């Protein structure tokens, strides 16, 4: 056992470090370090332009989308090299926020399902950050039960083969600055729900597409609703066969769960620092036995996630696929950051209610308290993740699905509908 690089890994790390050292936007470092969860890290300039500028520099030097093939704008690097790059990029990786969905989910889906010409056209500008993608999946009626979605696509009556889309998506990250969207629709309501779906991609500037920001429970607006009113999509922009949308979406979701939750912080280091500084009965909070007990439990979760990640990296380093243990990441991190935020406020006493610049660590724990409920839902809710661990890792049977063989149009839509 060791934490050392192989000679090849060390060479790659040195190259990555040299590039980052020479080219990273160091003037942004102070605000990137201060950034708290749920708010845009860069305030001093347009955050999107800052992100695009860094991505462009990386792309020009061959450091963008390391895991993609070179012909699509990537670098053809191994998974372990991608991990090493991430370690070296450090705080600057926060600038990749606008590209996470595109690079992690939409890109791999396009790569797996689009025609060669489309891949040549779409993937390089996605890799270089010139074009941004969003994922148009969740709907008011289809979140965890994604296949319950209702956005309809029907063939145009003019014989062009085009599709006309009507409906609404929700929780679309980055839709407001996206150039392209990956869109799943219902094309056949008279067959069981998983069999009547079809996947498309479209320009977000297509006529009839309207993006509206959602005001979140924490007061911010990171997500959007996207409305589709008679939006026309050429049949050439279909991914997979008509009715094969569910299968196509699995490519996306598989990649989503890989991207969200790997290497997530639980904010334990920030809590620990706070407990060394804050006082309980005139002593540092960390001297109190009850505080220690809570802190220790947070500490071992943070550390357990860290070393679970290192076990996955070990597998990658040996050219193997990481084991199922990586599936616990977001489940543990989400719940931990919420409990940890509540605990930090508890230690602040009645003053914990205050959320302004006088709050400890600039109100970081208040921000965390207010943002963390979303972490337990986005990218697979805690409950969906437990089902996945239960069924795919432990081999337990799936739940009984009462709507499985029912035509979609006959599935009840309200729990209180008259029978």
């Amino acid at each position, binding site marked *: 056992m060791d934490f050392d*690089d192989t000679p090849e890994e060390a060479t790659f790390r040195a190259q990555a470090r040299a590039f980052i050292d020479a080219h990273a936007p160091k003037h942004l470092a102070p605000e990137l370090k201060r950034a708290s969860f749920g708010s845009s890290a860069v305030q001093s300039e347009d955050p999107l332009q800052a992100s695009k500028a860094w991505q462009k520099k990386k792309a020009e030097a061959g450091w963008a989308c390391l895991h993609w093939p070179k012909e699509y704008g990537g670098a053809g690097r191994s998974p372990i090299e991608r991990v090493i790059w991430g370690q070296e990029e450090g705080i600057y990786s926060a600038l990749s926020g606008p590209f996470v969905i595109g690079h992690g989910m939409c890109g791999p889906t396009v790569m797996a399902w689009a025609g060669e010409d489309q891949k040549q056209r779409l993937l390089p500008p996605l890799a270089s950050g010139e074009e941004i993608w969003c994922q148009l999946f969740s709907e008011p009626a289809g979140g965890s039960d994604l296949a319950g979605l209702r956005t309809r696509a029907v063939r145009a009556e003019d014989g062009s083969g085009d599709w006309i889309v009507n409906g609404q998506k929700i929780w679309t990250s980055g839709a407001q600055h996206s150039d392209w969207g990956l869109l799943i629709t219902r094309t056949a309501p008279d067959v069981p729900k998983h069999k009547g779906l079809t996947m498309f991609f479209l320009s977000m500037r297509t006529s009839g597409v309207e993006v509206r920001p959602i005001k979140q429970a924490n007061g911010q607006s990171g997500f959007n609703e996207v409305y589709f009113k008679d939006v026309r999509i050429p049949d050439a922009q279909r991914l997979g066969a008509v009715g094969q949308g569910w299968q196509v979406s699995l490519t996306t979701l598989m990649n989503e769960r890989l991207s969200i939750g790997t290497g997530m912080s639980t904010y334990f280091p920030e809590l620990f620092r706070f407990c060394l500084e804050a006082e309980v009965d005139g002593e540092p909070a960390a001297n109190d036995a009850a505080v220690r007990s809570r802190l220790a439990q947070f500490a071992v979760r943070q550390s*357990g996630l860290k070393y679970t990640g290192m076990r996955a990296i070990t597998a990658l380093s040996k050219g193997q696929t990481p084991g199922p243990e990586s599936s616990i990441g977001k489940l543990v991190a989400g719940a931990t950051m919420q409990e940890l935020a509540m605990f930090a406020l508890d230690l602040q006493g009645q003053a914990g209610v205050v959320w302004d610049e006088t709050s400890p660590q600039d109100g970081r724990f208040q921000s965390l308290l207010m943002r963390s409920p979303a972490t337990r839902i986005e990218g697979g809710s805690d409950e969906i993740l437990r089902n996945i661990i239960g069924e795919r890792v432990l081999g337990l049977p799936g739940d009984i699905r009462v709507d499985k063989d029912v035509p979609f149009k006959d599935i009840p839509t309200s729990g209180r509908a008259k029978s």
Partner: protein
Amino acid sequence: MNLDFSEEQKALKDQVRRFLDARCTPAAVRTILEGPEPFDRGLYAGLAELGVLGAAIPEAYGGVGLSHLELCVVAEELGRALAPVPVASSIYLAAEFLLQAGSEAQKRAWLPKLASGQAVGTFAFVEGQGRMTPDKVQTAVASGGLSGVKSPVSDGDIADVAIVLARAGGGRGADAVSLFVVDLNGPGVSRDTLKTIDPTRSQARIAFDNAPAEPLGGTGDGWHVTTQVMDRAAILMAFEQVGGADRALEMARDYALDRMAFGRPIGSFQAIKHMLANMYVSSTLARSNCYYAAWALASGAVELPVAAATARVSATTAFQHCAKNNIQVHGGMGFTWAFDCHLFYRRSNALALALGSLSTWESLLIERMSAGNLNAAA
């Protein structure tokens, strides 16, 4: 980056598992639980023959001369099988004390016997209720004779030799206590087996009355060496706990697949499925923390004290969590004597207290992180 055991270490683990599957069945564990024997002598002799007792003891002292990584994989298997043998007392503690602080003569006298299973060792530390501190030690040595009462002492009724923490001379605090080697078959030693929550691992009360005692290590080094050895033992114990947690999870999973209620396997109900998923999460976190601690143990890293407390807290939490929910998944059957769930429940709660309770280790972890630096938290 290599946070995994080698192929050879995994092969050793498989070998020990096969051996224990054959020799340490639940029925064999029950023989100790229900019968008069304090431990499984045949199994212990078999483990000695296999070389696992002496795995981390140098060849010069009758061991196999492998590393502590090998001992970690062995420990996991012993925990998984609930092996009713004194490996923790004799190897993780007594042998480790001798290796860390023993004189050449002491090592030569005892290590070969501990490695061969010919003698059993233990550590006589605790004196009554609550977290042990140097000032709680009342056992004292005067003119080479040791007097006082140690209770509970793991395997104190079957051990041949004990490392005893005792007062030598006056003073208070950590510098006032020292370590001694006492032959438990010699004069001035009387012992009683204690009734405990887990009779598959023996505990005893030992009364010393002017028993001949030989110093181990320097005068006043007792607390320091104890802390070092307890950290090392805690890592091995954490592996036992992870082994037990995994097995309890497997039992619960198998039962959830098999048991039908309301016309379906109970594992298809989310209430059960999610309970099992949470058990998987605890045991995975604990395993990863244990691997980190194994690295620290084998490499002698400065992170060892933090890594040991981390592994210990995580593994204690995981084993207790998995063992109690294993009963819950089994429902009423899980509370019968006939089902094996209570064996894991007993062991998980006994191991949670061995080497110091969960709250003690939680506190140690945070003390150490505070004393070190903030990097320890990142």
